[in-house]
């Protein structure tokens, strides 16, 4: 039971970091990133590359979370001037291209087979590290969220042209947000690799992006609390899949697919009936009369 709790908390914490990263991009800035699994994968593959090439763990971490924002900037630069629909397609494609590259180039981290990395044997330590990463990410995002920068990013979300006529270069701010949020997702990837003890292309399918989006949309993309809540719900249904399978005597494959179908239904229902998610963006009040 304790093992299960430790495993669940670790999982929820890591995926919450991915959710907060998406909160900054989508909830705050309006960037529709359908390749959110990409920076996560880049982080993990940094660890995988280091393990395969005999580099120390810190070097893998550095490669992973340094490369993630670089790749983000490379993806966004040509796509920056495109409309949001194209942005979604470009990021989706970039994520798949990276995964296919890892699958086929065995020299980087084992190709199809994947690669083993140092596994954190102490599961409590793994959980603590995940919680530390989550706390740091949340504090950083919260500071951005409640700042003049957060206000401007919301204007970008609502109307890029307005921001431009007010003297701000939208692309510059989109690049900043991408860099920051992809570092966060990259760090989550590094930690994930060391928690599971291996990296393999099958961990970074498009479906993972879909799972992150479901959590963020369900809980509320505009708040950190919403993102963490949504992630907890979605990941708990994930980790309990095999218990449900046991209990219901259905094949676990079927239960897993039913879970994804349920996520799809959740996405549609939330979009239709509660687009702001469970926890909506709070209104920030100012005293307009005096002082």
């Amino acid at each position, binding site marked *: 039971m304790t093992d299960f709790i430790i495993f669940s908390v670790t999982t929820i914490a890591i995926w919450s970091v991915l959710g907060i990263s998406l909160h900054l991009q989508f909830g705050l800035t309006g960037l529709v990133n359908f390749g959110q699994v990409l920076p996560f994968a880049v982080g993990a593959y940094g660890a995988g590359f280091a393990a395969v090439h005999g580099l120390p763990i810190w070097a893998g971490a550095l490669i992973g979370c340094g490369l993630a924002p670089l790749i983000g900037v490379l993806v966004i630069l040509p796509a920056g001037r495109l409309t949001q629909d194209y942005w979604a397609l470009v990021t989706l494609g970039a994520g798949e291209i990276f995964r296919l590259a890892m699958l086929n180039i065995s020299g980087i981290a084992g190709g199809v087979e994947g690669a083993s990395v140092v596994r954190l044997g102490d599961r409590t330590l793994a959980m603590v590290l995940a919680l530390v990463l989550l706390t740091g990410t949340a504090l950083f995002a919260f*500071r*951005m969220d409640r*700042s*003049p*920068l957060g*206000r*401007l990013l*919301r*204007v970008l*979300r*609502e*109307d890029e*042209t*307005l*921001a*431009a*006529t*007010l*003297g*701000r*270069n*939208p692309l510059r*701010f989109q690049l*900043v947000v991408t860099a*920051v949020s992809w570092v966060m997702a990259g760090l989550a990837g590094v930690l994930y690799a060391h928690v599971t003890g291996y990296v393999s292309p099958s961990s970074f399918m498009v479906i993972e992006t879909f799972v992150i989006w479901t959590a963020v949309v369900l809980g509320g993309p505009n708040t950190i609390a919403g993102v963490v809540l949504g992630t907890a719900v979605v990941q708990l249904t994930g980790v309990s899949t095999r218990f449900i399978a046991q209990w219901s005597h259905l094949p676990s494959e079927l239960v897993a697919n039913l879970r994804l179908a349920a996520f799809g239904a959740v996405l549609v229902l939330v979009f239709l009936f509660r687009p702001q998610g469970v926890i909506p*963006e709070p*209104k*920030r*009040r*100012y*005293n*307009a*009369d005096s*002082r």
Partner: protein
Amino acid sequence: MLIAADISVAFGGFQALRSVSVQAAPGSIVGLVGPNGSGKSTLLDVIAGLRQPDGGKVQLDGATVPLGRPDVVAGFGIGRAFQVPRLARRLTVFQNVMVGARGQSGEKLSDLFLRPGRVARREREVEAAARDILRRLDLSHKANDYASDLSGGQQKLLSMGILLMAHPRVLLLDEPAAGVNPVLIERQIRFLRELRDEGRIIVLVEHNMEMVANVCDHIFVLDAGEVIAAGTPMQIRADARVMRSYLGQPA
């Protein structure tokens, strides 16, 4: 002095502006009138850097204003309010106004984390300025409403307020009075005169000839992408061609 010279814009095969030239002196309100589709909004877009013209140039006080770069143009002190107001609809009125301020240290990540004191100080200045502007526009009571909850007329006032936060030298106003109730129009007119007396350059696009004649110092009349007349309100009223272009084109 704001000068837009020989501006031409084509949308596909359709010529929206044909070598249009207008100018506006500091401390004056210049009207841009003409029937629907004559190219008024397109001209403002070109000056504001939102549309790259096929030819022509824009100058402010002798300096060349870059074309097609709205964020850079704003740095020249040129502000544009839109015919259909552009606002951050899911932010409050107060937040919208605050965004208008330039040079906010808290928009830089480095300052946010390394110079929190400076960020907080600047933020208090911005708050105070926003409070003043809302008072001037008589919108204080709406400060904490979402921008989307304002009436059309109030939204036009708000977009002017956002502009003013940046202390622009030039205000490009696109039909600020359209759909606004008469009381608010009176307030706008008073406000425009105040701004003019502060020495700013105001370019006012208006459909309504009466209102324009009432507040403008100089008027350019556009028709089908061409300037067909220019002069004082008196001269324009006396111009037979202008009157003809309005016949059969009720406002």
